[in-house]
């Protein structure tokens, strides 16, 4: 690898700080960049004292700057708030309003961290970028393609959020933590005496304080002056019996049990939501089991495509244990039909369906 600078995406957390320090210690020229993505002061009603999972706080920038100073690298904060709102926050809100459950981290990876950030890397003359993601990239000489693999630390693996990465993006990206476990990373950070070694992990969706996405949506819609057309609707069973009323489909996600506000004998779960009719369908646990899904907007990573049916393990949400399925190509090359060997619980529109062959990420798409 030539000795051009590496642009490290520094969030101020332990992982990306360790990446920057590791590369700098190897003698590579490193430029640290913190992406300012969201202004936490914009929706003041959400600023709960002690809220967890907040991104881009002044404290995080302080921490990243401190690490950059410690390891002696140039460091800048770059403002991507405009792009983040357009390409992550707005789709996030629109998806919920459409009755789906979005994955903003994947959009952020696709359009911000591995797109806009790569442009900024170009601007500072960096051929490569490095991030603190737990995943591995390998070049396969046989296929001539860059492959994405699960992290060695399975509990930290982030490949579920990285299925949208393209070959040009993978070719320029380094994931130095992919071969390490989280405890090893912390140990390394401590050994290198990084000021952030003891800092807690970030949580959930970075711009949604305390994981309360419904509160975020209300505040954001109020801030932007958008009133969703109709937010009330009936809660019904699959046989059409009305059990109650709700305040908007965006408050519900498939498989959700709590907060339905209806009480019948057996436990009830959200089976599906329909933004058009604003209906929330509920039912018993067995009604959540689905053996088939269609993924759209499919991106293939380790394969050029899937002309013939292939066997794969498929993950339908981040914490899901990948399940065996047959992938069936559709006439539209961006769509894939997934037929599970065993029905899966709570297949949720808007989430990602990521296809694995063991550790290898074959590709992935969005559940319809």
């Amino acid at each position, binding site marked *: 690898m030539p000795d051009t600078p590496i642009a490290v995406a520094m969030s101020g957390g332990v992982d990306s700080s360790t990446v920057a320090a590791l590369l700098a210690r190897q003698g590579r020229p490193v*430029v640290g960049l913190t992406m*300012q993505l969201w*202004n936490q002061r914009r929706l003041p009603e959400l600023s709960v004292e002690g809220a967890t999972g907040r991104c881009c706080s002044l404290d995080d920038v302080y921490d990243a700057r401190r690490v950059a100073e410690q390891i002696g690298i*140039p460091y*800048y*904060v*770059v*403002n991507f*708030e*405009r792009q983040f709102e357009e390409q992550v926050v707005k789709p996030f809100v629109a998806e919920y309003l459409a009755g789906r459950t979005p994955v903003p981290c994947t959009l952020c990876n696709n359009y911000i961290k591995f797109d806009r950030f790569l*442009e*900024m890397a*170009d*601007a*500072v*003359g960096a051929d490569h970028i490095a991030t603190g993601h737990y995943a591995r990239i390998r070049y396969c000489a046989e296929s001539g393609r860059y492959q994405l693999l699960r992290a060695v630390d399975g509990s930290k693996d982030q490949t579920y959020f990285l299925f949208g990465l393209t070959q040009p993006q993978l070719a320029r990206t380094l994931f130095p933590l992919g071969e390490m476990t989280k405890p090893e990373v912390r140990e390394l950070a401590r050994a290198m005496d990084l000021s952030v070694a003891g800092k807690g992990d970030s949580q959930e969706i970075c711009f949604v304080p305390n994981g309360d996405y419904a509160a975020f949506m209300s505040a954001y819609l109020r801030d932007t002056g958008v009133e969703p057309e109709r937010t009330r609707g009936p809660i019904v069973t699959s046989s059409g019996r009305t059990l109650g009323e709700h305040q908007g489909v965006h408050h519900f996600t498939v498989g959700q049990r709590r907060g339905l506000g209806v009480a019948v004998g057996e436990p009830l779960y959200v089976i599906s939501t329909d933004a058009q009719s604003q209906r929330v369908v509920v039912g018993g646990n067995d009604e959540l089991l689905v053996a088939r899904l269609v993924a759209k907007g499919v991106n293939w990573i380790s394969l050029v495509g899937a002309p013939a049916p292939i066997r794969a393990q498929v993950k339908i949400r981040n914490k899901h244990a990948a399940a065996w399925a047959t992938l069936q190509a559709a006439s539209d090359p961006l769509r894939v039909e997934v037929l599970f060997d065993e029905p899966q619980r709570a297949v949720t529109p808007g989430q990602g369906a990521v296809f694995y062959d063991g550790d290898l990420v074959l590709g992935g798409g969005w559940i319809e």
Partner: protein
Amino acid sequence: MERVYFDHNATTPVASEVLEAMVPAFGQTYGNASSIHHFGQVAKQRLEAARRQIAASIHAHPAEVVFTSGGTEADNMAVLGIGRAVSGPRHLITTAIEHPAVLAVCRQLEREGAEVTRLPVGSTGVLDPESVRSALRSETVLVSVMHANNELGTVQPIAEIARITREAGVVFHVDGVQALGKIPVNVSALGADLYSTSAHKLYGPKGVGALYVRKGTRIAALTFGGHHERDRRPGTENVPAIVGFGVAAELAAGNLATDGERIAGLRDRLETVVLDRIAETGINGARTARTPNTTNIYFDGIDGEALVIALDLRGFAVSTGSACSSGAVTPSHVLTAIGLSAERARASIRFSLGTSTTGQQVDALVEALEASVVHLRRISVHA
């Protein structure tokens, strides 16, 4: 890597004469200027000597100079001091291109019930004095217009505006933070009632400024405490910084003509060569009636933030605009006020030269600029 500084509107290095004058005030003449004893008296002498130096540099009477913690406090003291001096309906007039230290405090007065008119400026970045006349109302209490703009360097027709405000009997505040040390300042000739200054823009220390308050102008107090600064600004005076400010103001007044001409020559050279060698560039705002050290140039198709970083990595310090709004998501309010599209505003860079700037530095900057702009346009990092 040799580093070169082209951001003198953000701040300046402290001149060696200034530093030399300041040092004894820390460890030798360290008394509290309000104390009765010898230590206090010596500190008081230093304080008043500095006040005379600053008064002389703006052609004011020493009793009209109130020391503050800097330009922002001086602006706040002026706008709030007048805006809060009356109760009932009150109206203020300012411009769309003021510094946040004035605009934000006007917004605060709006929250307190005042009405504020923000006059537009044309593409030149220079206010038409007649627009002040048409904006005046019976309840107008203050007109606040900056002397020189921090982003463009454009100089406003202060004397003409003052004739209008005086006729109307309205107090006139001038934010002179970017003017003092760069162009002649004569508060009497300008007709300003209040005039804000800041030491660190003219090779003085940070954390000290002054507000000129014309004799007879009543301003409401903002902070409360002892009887310092004729009851207008309580708190033990920062004598070392004030001593430095005095020397800096005196130095600047003495060097103004020769420095100004030399620096303007370098600035013009920078503009000429940039426009000649780099395509799709242009100067923002008027090229006449400017402070000698400032130019603001757009480079179409590039992201100003990326250009600032790329130049910094090559050793050149420039900025996208006011240092106080760095990292802001919205494009410069000054550039959009003079009619730039958001895209062109984001593609604009401010270069501000100083006493240490040399022709060699300008040439090296142009080399780095050309290379960076070509690179950024090739990889198309869009604004």
